[in-house]
């Protein structure tokens, strides 16, 4: 029987809940000798035109997508990559579109065995727009899914 997990997907929307999921995903990866696939999905502005304000307060201009991408990559580097245990293999998957759809696509493309994500991420209007990602992913992902609760302690 092979290892239970070879690739563990960690989905982040940069919320506190996602940060907790990162700790769980990392611990599991170390325990099972798995690699980590860090997944973040930026909103496709053609799908949700008003949403750019939730990412950064810049005027919409032709460079906006590029700025979002760079900001997301920088956040992933600072919040997660730099905190990974030394030697833990990882890949960053930055996608654009509907969060649940893109996460499911990454799971299939990368043959992820387990997906770890926060159960409740952003709040307010962002939650209205993105908040049900976890239950959409649970319905459709081709792998097991661990949703981590928010612990405010």
């Amino acid at each position, binding site marked *: 029987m092979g290892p239970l997990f070879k690739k563990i997907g960690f989905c982040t929307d940069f919320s506190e809940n996602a940060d907790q999921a990162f700790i769980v995903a990392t611990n599991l990866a170390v325990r099972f000798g798995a690699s980590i696939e860090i997944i973040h999905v930026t909103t496709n502005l053609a799908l949700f035109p008003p949403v750019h304000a939730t990412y950064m307060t810049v005027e919409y201009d032709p460079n906006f997508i590029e700025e979002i991408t760079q900001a997301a990559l920088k956040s992933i580097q600072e919040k997660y990559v730099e905190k990974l245990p030394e030697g833990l293999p990882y890949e960053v998957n930055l996608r654009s579109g509907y969060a649940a759809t893109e996460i499911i696509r990454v799971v299939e493309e990368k043959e992820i065995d387990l997906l770890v994500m926060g159960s409740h991420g952003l709040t307010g209007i962002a939650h209205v727009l993105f908040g049900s990602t976890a239950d959409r992913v649970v*319905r459709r992902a081709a792998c097991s899914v661990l949703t981590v609760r928010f612990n405010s302690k």
Partner: protein
Amino acid sequence: MERFLIALDCQPDCVKTIDYMVRVLKGTQDCEFKIFHILATASPDKLRLEEVQRIEHVHAARPDLAGYFWEKEDEKTMERCFAQAMEKLVIGGFRPESVLFLFAVQSGDVAEIIMAKAAELGCSTIVLGRRRHSLVKALLRGSVSASVVKSARGSAVWVIEI
């Protein structure tokens, strides 16, 4: 001490959920398992009299079940499933004392019953198996696991692909 509520639907392959958790947790000792099943309700009109009387005796010991009846065959299936779960957990290195079996009847929304039981027992993680259904079937039947994920605020939820 981590306390897991593992909800089993007692379909033939549901103990795969136990296999999975044994592999995840093997070697750890600070775990308690609450294995939980929800029996489908049955009309007492369709049950034999002695079966109705037997369940009424159960009601005396379990007031939370009062007014609800179930098929004896479902109960037997559940007991077989629980026995398999215990065997797998013990073979996996877990102490029998760390395992508790519980059942309820489907007196309302299944996801809500699971979450209420997890909260009552102080479980930090809810574990559920999930089968792949067609889109139409999923739309018609809904998804217990998705409902639990959406609503469980006090527990982590581990949805296992069966």
